[in-house]
């Protein structure tokens, strides 16, 4: 905590409490202690006071204990020699300030001075006695509920309390427009040397009132207590809290009311003190002048106080500066923006995912035979991304002949406080689906073998390279907003840069492959569950580890991890693996406990690396089924694609009935095909060397990977020694083949 801020805030608090005292004495003398005080058309008495102290103040006399409470919160400004952190004292001062300000407001009400008169101000929609000539006064309950519902359900991301005066009238208008564009409520108060943003907006003809989401409260800083009262009442109304549940009310606001304060122009003592009060609600303060910052997070979700001197903000015009200023405020508060429509000139939706663009209908293509196309998503620092920046670097396709091809690189850079490098591939894979959603666009492949076609129909409607950026920007925010805060997209056609980034992308892909290969079960603290299939296999739980992907093949450990970040109450939950009961077969105490609970008691032990003892159950979505062949002392693996008879005497579909349904069946196991090449693959039962029969489909489609796995297993020719449906469909035939080929399983320890 900056000592400078502490000093100023404490000074401001002392001043305002003194002012409250003076006004209260005057009111007691002139109006008497029994004079009623209340904010019109609102429940919850004086809401900030009620929230903070539990006191239901109904009369002037009732303000006396509030004053005492304020005094109890005050401390002297820190002396020059003190170097303690002053956070607690400063926050207390902030609270005292808000209570005193609300007390003063109440007295003004009793005197008929609120809502304040404001000649010339017209409001469209207000709680004031008239829509001309008045500030708004407290937001009435009906409006509170109406906006409250939108704040709670997320249609309205939050509110901004603007205090003071913008650098210029144009800046004032632009700041407000930026907020309106994002559906953020705007509350106005305060002045700098007598001029307020309210004046500025009036001069510029900006319509204010409930209908435009702009609410002017007053020209003084004291009026800032209305937004705080609004926040408190939201917690009381929507959070079901009672007055005096201070901690709960503040936490509610911190986590649920995405509000922030913008301090425009010079910040005086009272503004510092009021800002300290706002911080107790978890509302950060962003100033457009030079003030000390409070960066470390704690009370607010992220930074407390940020200084962005207007003149230093990047940008030619006030409009550009305002955009950056507001963006910064939104980031600091952690407000999530939702984009509901993808702004492209062609229809967009999943209905178009499967479209083909034929050669004859094609305007241009990227990738395929005649050009190179890559897509690469990387994570960068929050400061290194300008949200919604979409750049086309190099020539567009205007000059490419019809049906021609050019090189394209799609570089997506994302930043987010919850983003992790490991999520890069998970997000990158989405590019395919996102781009395919546009009508007249066809996307195939991924990474450096991406292949995109744009139809003539789409370009006729104006579809251009930059629209790829718009699509990706909108969809990443929309679908992955939980982990992505900012997105920028570069569409690179410029040859030199294309070559450079292609190289970088390839390096990254290699690194990722490497990382995936190195990621072991031992190296992580938690596995993930997948209960997606419990709808039809109610007792089944998949345990997904780095070295054992889900049996459906669709979810690996990283997918689950990202899915959990995006949907914390969803089907993928972290399972801290706990202590190894048997590290070799892969039994972990916490995993057992999780499975027992999730299977509703049906399964109490599960091994990660064995098919013979407590094997994992299967839902029915398995890519492959393994089953013991007792005579052969090994296992067979049949893949879903293989319709032929297996040596177990059953086809895949008959076997599926036996393997599925969430039953633990030793000797039978459903797996994802990439588990076969894992180092943990049925390790406890002898690993890959136990495989005596395998669908030829697997042998062919995974030839490279299997070869490598065989080498790791110490038997480079292993795959050739394994029978398949072309040479054996009964166990006897398998056995004969194994004897011929010299398969290692025949000399391994008996399975049973």
């Amino acid at each position: 905590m900056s000592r400078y801020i502490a000093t100023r805030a404490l000074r401001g608090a002392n001043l305002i409490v003194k002012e409250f005292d003076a006004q209260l004495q005057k009111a007691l003398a002139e109006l008497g202690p029994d004079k009623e005080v209340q904010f019109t058309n609102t429940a919850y008495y004086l809401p900030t006071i009620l929230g903070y102290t539990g006191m239901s103040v109904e009369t002037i006399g009732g303000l006396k204990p509030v004053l005492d409470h304020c005094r109890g919160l005050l401390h002297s400004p820190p002396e020059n020699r003190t170097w303690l952190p002053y956070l607690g004292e400063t926050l207390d001062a902030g609270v005292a300030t808000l209570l005193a300000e609300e007390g003063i407001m109440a007295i003004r009400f009793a005197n008929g001075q609120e809502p304040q008169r404001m000649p010339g101000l017209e409001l469209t929609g207000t709680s004031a006695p008239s829509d001309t000539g008045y500030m708004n006064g407290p937001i009435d309950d009906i409006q509170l509920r109406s906006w409250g519902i939108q704040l709670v359900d997320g249609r309205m991301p939050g509110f901004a309390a603007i205090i003071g005066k913008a650098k210029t009238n144009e800046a004032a208008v632009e700041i407000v427009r930026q907020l309106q564009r994002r559906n953020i409520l705007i509350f106005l108060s305060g002045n700098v040397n007598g001029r307020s943003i309210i004046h500025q907006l009036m001069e510029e003809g900006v319509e204010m009132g409930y209908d435009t989401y702009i609410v002017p409260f007053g020209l003084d800083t004291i009026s800032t207590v209305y937004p705080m009262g609004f926040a408190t009442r939201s917690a009381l109304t929507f959070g079901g809290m009672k007055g005096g549940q201070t901690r709960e009310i503040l936490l509610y606001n911190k986590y649920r009311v995405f509000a922030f304060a913008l301090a425009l122009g010079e910040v005086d003592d009272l503004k510092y003190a009021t800002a300290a009060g706002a911080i107790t609600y978890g509302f950060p303060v962003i100033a457009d002048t030079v003030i000390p910052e409070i960066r470390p997070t704690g009370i607010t979700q992220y930074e407390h106080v940020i200084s962005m001197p207007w003149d230093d903000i990047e940008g030619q015009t006030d409009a550009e500066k305002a955009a950056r200023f507001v963006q910064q405020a939104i980031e600091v508060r952690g407000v999530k923006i939702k984009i509901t429509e993808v702004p492209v000139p062609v229809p967009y939706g999943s209905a178009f995912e499967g479209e083909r663009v034929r050669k004859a209908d094609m305007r241009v293509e990227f990738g395929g035979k005649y050009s190179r196309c890559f897509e690469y998503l990387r994570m960068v620092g929050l400061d290194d991304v300008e949200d919604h920046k979409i750049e086309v670097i190099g020539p567009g396709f205007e000059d490419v002949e019809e049906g021609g091809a050019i090189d394209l690189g799609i570089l997506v850079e994302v930043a987010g406080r919850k983003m992790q490098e490991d999520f890069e591939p998970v997000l990158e894979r989405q590019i395919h689906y996102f781009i395919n959603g546009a009508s007249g666009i066809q996307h195939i492949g991924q990474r450096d073998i991406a292949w995109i076609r744009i139809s003539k129909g789409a370009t006729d409607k104006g579809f251009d390279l930059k629209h790829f950026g718009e699509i990706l920007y909108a969809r990443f925010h929309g679908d992955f907003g939980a982990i992505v805060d900012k997105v920028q997209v570069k569409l690179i056609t410029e040859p030199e840069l294309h070559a450079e980034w292609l190289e970088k992308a390839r390096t990254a892909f290699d690194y990722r492959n490497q990382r995936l290969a190195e990621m072991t079960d031992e190296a992580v603290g938690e596995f993930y569950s997948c209960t997606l299939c419990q709808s039809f296999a109610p007792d089944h739980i998949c345990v997904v580890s780095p070295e054992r992907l889900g049996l459906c093949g669709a979810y690996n450990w990283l997918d689950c991890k990202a899915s959990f970040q995006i949907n914390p109450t969803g089907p993928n939950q972290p399972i801290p693996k706990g202590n190894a009961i048997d590290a070799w077969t892969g039994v972990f105490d916490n995993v057992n406990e999780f499975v027992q609970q999730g299977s509703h008691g049906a399964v109490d032990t599960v091994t990660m690396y064995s098919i013979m003892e407590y094997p994992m159950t299967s839902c029915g979505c398995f890519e492959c089924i393994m089953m013991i062949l007792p005579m052969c002392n090994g296992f067979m693996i049949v893949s879903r694609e293989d319709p032929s008879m297996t040596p177990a005497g059953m086809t895949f579909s008959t076997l599926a009935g036996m393997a599925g349904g969430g039953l633990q069946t030793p000797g039978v196991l459903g797996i994802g095909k990439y588990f076969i090449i894992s180092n943990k693959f049925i390790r406890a039962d002898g690993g890959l060397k136990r495989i005596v029969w395998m669908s030829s489909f697997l042998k062919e489609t995974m030839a490279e990977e299997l070869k490598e796995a065989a080498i790791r297993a110490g038997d480079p020719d292993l795959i050739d020694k394994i029978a398949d449906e072309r040479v054996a469909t009964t166990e006897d035939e398998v056995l004969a083949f194994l004897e011929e080929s010299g398969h290692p399983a025949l000399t391994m320890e008996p399975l049973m």
Partner: protein
Amino acid sequence: MALSGLQIYKLLPKTNCKDCGYPTCLAFAMKLAAKQASLDDCPHVSAEAKEALSAASAPPIRLVKVGTGAREFQVGNETVMFRHEKTFFHHPGLALRVKDTEDAGAVAEKVKMVNDYSVERVGIEMTFNAIAIENASGDPGTYADAVKAVRSQTALPFVLMSDDVDALKAALDVEGDHKPVLYAATVDNWEAMAGLAKGKQVSLAVRSQDGLDELADLATKLGDAGVEALVLDPGSRDLGESLAQVTQLRRLALKKNLRLLGHPIIAFAGEVADTEEGEIVATTQFIAKYAGIIVMDRFDPAVAYPLLTLRLNIYTDPQKPISVDPGIYDFNNPTADSPLMTTTNFSLTYFSVAGELDGSGIPSWLLICDAEGMSVLTAWAAGKFDAETIAKAVKTFNAGDKLSHKKIILPGHVAVLSGELEEELPGWEILVGPREAVDLPAYLKQL
């Protein structure tokens, strides 16, 4: 502790002779472990193995066969309390009761109605299963005549109801070896009943007048007397108490492994209720909750159809959902201009779509593809509902012949197939509908 399939396998002959009806000894062992097969099906199993396996492999609720020939039905062999745990295997036999005091013509009419009644749903023929004939006259001769008369009218199995051993004996004499169920042994007549049932090799129902203790006592005695196939009537005729009793019986058999009560249950819906609606309610309860034979006193197609449907639904294997027949289905008298939709043959998928189409009042066609009974997304993921499948169905069922247009609407979840399907079906326009059936009416209205 139940044995795993592998443990059972070790005790089997390991010859893979297939005489049990399963492809390998291991497959048979797995079925035994899941309590879905009986060790008796293996003719080669050794005496030692039998000994070791019998405890582990005998179904906890005994299978009872009722009747002979085409109308024979089996009840029992259930392994779970809740159908979601595995499935309910043998649906309850529905019986209509007639009395030997009723007018013979009236009886004949009822018997004919039940005998002939058969109604189809999702390709499955549903029927009643038995006639219960009660010796209300108290006279063995009258009873035997009545039984004989009904037997001349139907091949349906019988439940022969009398507390008088002589009456049942007389009835059995005319019934021959049609394997009826004798109803019922009680504290008063059990010894004679046991003798009769044993002598004629028929299953015997046992009725308690005093709760489960008496039932267990009787079942023990009958077992000791050598009667193997029992059917239990725990006695209550109160809807709520019946529910408690059947639940307790099922739990005792499955969870306490109490073999002596591990038999199918017979319930009397007509005795639980005094109105037709009450009988519908009672039958519903007994279908859902654990009865093996349900005896009703009334028969009306308008009641039989819903109740048989319920039985079909409850006894559907949750993991192997019934599928509907592939083909073209019509809704609200469609014409050649009506829209054509397609989806998979998973029953719930079909019913969701059919329900919406039916309810919308919009004339339409629905092409059901053979996706091995999977839902749209599951089938798509498994490659069972792809462009090829749909195109094949369009051709097989000559969808084009019914239409003046060439448009087909895909489920929104498989929008991704549209391009491929366009190639598979040249000349057709592929439209993408909503993802959920519930949005179909709105979609069709704006089409």
